[in-house]
């Protein structure tokens, strides 16, 4: 399936900021299950690319002139498929065991430990099945309800609220996995809502857990909010231990009181007709082919 993504983020400041710096993780990788056909990330100043420790393509944005607005636009087309159940860790520099590390957003509590431990019998019969049960148990216990939690809410806080958004579902899943001794991590990305329909989200987050049984090894995806594995409706942007490692924008500024944030994301299925290249694109393509000869 081809997905067209249009993701615009606008920060407005009531009083101008004098300096802003942001780490952006807004560039999807081409990995098994998704192929990036075109992608453009635009910002009001030069973007400096860097690779973070998880291999995510990140950029640094610095604005050192007074500004009342930062407008980020990520657009492109990604071809996705259902993919395999297990994603190989080929090319990753961290061993799976790294993803047992505690973080503030995924730390355990007594409540959460008790909840996770109830899944031990199911897990002993098979990790894949057991983790599926865990996904449903979390979704049953924690309703999808925006406005209750925020970006700094930890797994056990959301669990105690019994409500949260996809980020909280992913954190709770990861926290439970760690309690059970299973490496797990956070994935941020997009979801084509038309395809799954259940929840009104286009920016999305889910979790991955490490499976090593019956001779098969790899990362299995668990979209807890939608009770499904990540499939062709999902486009992956970045992963890490938790939200803070993988979130699309992490920034700080000087000045700029009264921040207001507008985010609009549209993920839609492209028409199956291949897009006709514009005259300029064709001319450029010819030029670059000639220059390579």
């Amino acid at each position, binding site marked *: 399936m081809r997905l067209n993504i249009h993701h615009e983020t606008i920060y407005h400041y009531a009083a101008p900021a004098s300096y802003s*710096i*942001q*780490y952006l993780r807004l560039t999807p990788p081409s990995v098994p299950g998704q192929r990036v056909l075109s992608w453009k990330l635009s910002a009001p100043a030069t973007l*400096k690319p860097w690779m973070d*420790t998880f291999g995510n393509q990140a950029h640094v944005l610095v604005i050192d002139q007074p500004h009342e607005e930062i407008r980020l636009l990520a657009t492109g087309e990604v071809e996705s498929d259902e993919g395999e159940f297990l994603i190989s860790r080929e090319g990753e520099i*961290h*061993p799976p*065991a790294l993803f047992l590390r505690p973080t503030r957003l995924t730390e355990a509590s007594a409540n959460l430990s008790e909840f996770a431990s109830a899944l031990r019998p199911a897990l002993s019969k098979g990790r894949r099945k057991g983790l599926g049960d865990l996904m449903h148990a979390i979704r049953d216990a924690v309703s999808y309800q925006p406005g209750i939690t925020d970006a700094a809410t930890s797994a056990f806080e959301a669990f105690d609220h019994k409500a949260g958004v996809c980020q909280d579902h992913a954190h709770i899943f990861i926290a439970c996995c760690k309690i059970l001794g299973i490496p797990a991590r956070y994935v941020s990305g997009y979801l084509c809502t038309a395809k799954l329909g259940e929840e009104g989200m286009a920016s999305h987050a889910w979790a991955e857990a490490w499976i090593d049984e019956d001779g098969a090894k790899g990362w299995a995806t668990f979209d807890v909010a939608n009770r499904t594995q990540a499939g062709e409706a999902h486009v992956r942007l970045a992963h890490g231990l938790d939200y*803070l490692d993988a979130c699309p924008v992490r920034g700080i500024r000087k000045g700029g009181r009264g921040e207001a944030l507008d985010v609009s994301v549209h993920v839609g299925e492209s028409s199956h007709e291949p897009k006709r290249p514009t005259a300029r694109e064709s001319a450029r393509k010819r030029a670059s082919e000639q220059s390579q000869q």
Partner: protein
Amino acid sequence: MDAFDEMRGPNGTVAEAYQAVAEWLYATPSRLLDEKRREAEILFRRIGITFNVYGEDAGTERLIPFDIIPRSLAPWEWTKLSRGLEQRVRALDAFLADIYHEQEILKAGKIPSHKVLGNVLYRPEMQGIEVPGGVYVQIAGIDVVRTEPDRFFVLEDNLRTPSGVSYMLEDRAVMMRLFPDLFAKAKVAPIDHYPHELLRTLRSVCPAHAGADPVVVLLTPGPYNSAYFEHAFLAERMGIELVEGQDLFVQDDAVFMRTTLGPRRVDVIYRRLDDEFIDPLAFNPDSSLGVPGLLSVYRKGGVTLANAIGTGVADDKSIYPYVPDMIRFYLGEDPLLENVPTWLLERPEDLAYALDHLPELVVKETQGSGGYGMLVGPKSSKQEIEDFRQKIKANPEGYIAQPTLALSTCPTFTDEGIAPRHVDLRPFILHGKNSISMVPGGLTRVALRQGSLVVNSSQGGGTKDTWVLEE
């Protein structure tokens, strides 16, 4: 417990290294010594060498007590010690390079993987990157204690932001001022070139782009930090800028310092700020002390951090027991300095032993420092031991236990006259691109309370000038 006294020795004769000190003590009237002690205190107050004590009212500044009787090491003692320290620093740096690249020591099963990968002081952000000059620990402070004339133990490695070197330098400066004649008689190896050596070390590990004249700065958390005096002191002695996070900013893959003449690119940051606070976009998001964006520059090799991010995993007390194995694994050598036998309380059998023997053990938090959160069994009341037992039981993996060592003593001024007091030694080891160097000696800390084994300044310890005699 009978401790070895470094001046008197086991048989009561004055050790060779202490000949000059002993003669001086014998020849100087006590009234004059008292006068000099008061003079020393005035000098320290005037220099402004104070430190903040955590756990007391914010901003409580105290003078670290200074004892005017020097501690003295013979040249051969120092030679042996310094070789052991150099070996240890080489192995610890090799360990860091390994765990942040191939992780061979984990694959070889020498250290359980989870102890490194699950350690909060291990920083995944460092994985796979090349640090400028290939050095992780440019400045190490390794705490050493002595139990016998020829027996030194490493008590702990400090590989993050070790402090105390300013006291080492000031103690010497004050001693030379108070007792110039003494230094005319004893041939004491000089240490005042330390700031020069430190700057040379920092410059040697600058990024490739920096050229022959790199810009080096010292990054401090600010005046509320307990070691702020030292930060200002070292910056001044090295002739480099003392900066706080807000004085630096990131742009175009580089770090710049704000100056009255406009932005100036910074090549090497001697940072005295912990990892956790160094870049709020990568670590603790609430930190206002660091430099936002620093990690992105660092990962691309645009700036040197001394010490590197993530060195704490090598000085963590739960990793300490494996240092002798590291020396064998990376260097193929036998350790020259001994480790203190250590029980890891995460191991059930070690825990059981420790809980049975608390009154005779020293128990420490694996990630603690500064003498906080520790139990010295033989010096604690029944109640203190019971309270500590509960803490250990609640979180065994947070603690290690060691036998209580009979730390050596040195003659020290006390309210009851000159008496033996326990000491340790923190030498400072500088690791540059192609060299390891140290000025002779280090900082001697002395437990001023009779019988006390805790030398930390935050716990009522004092300091002494430390001599290494020249041949």
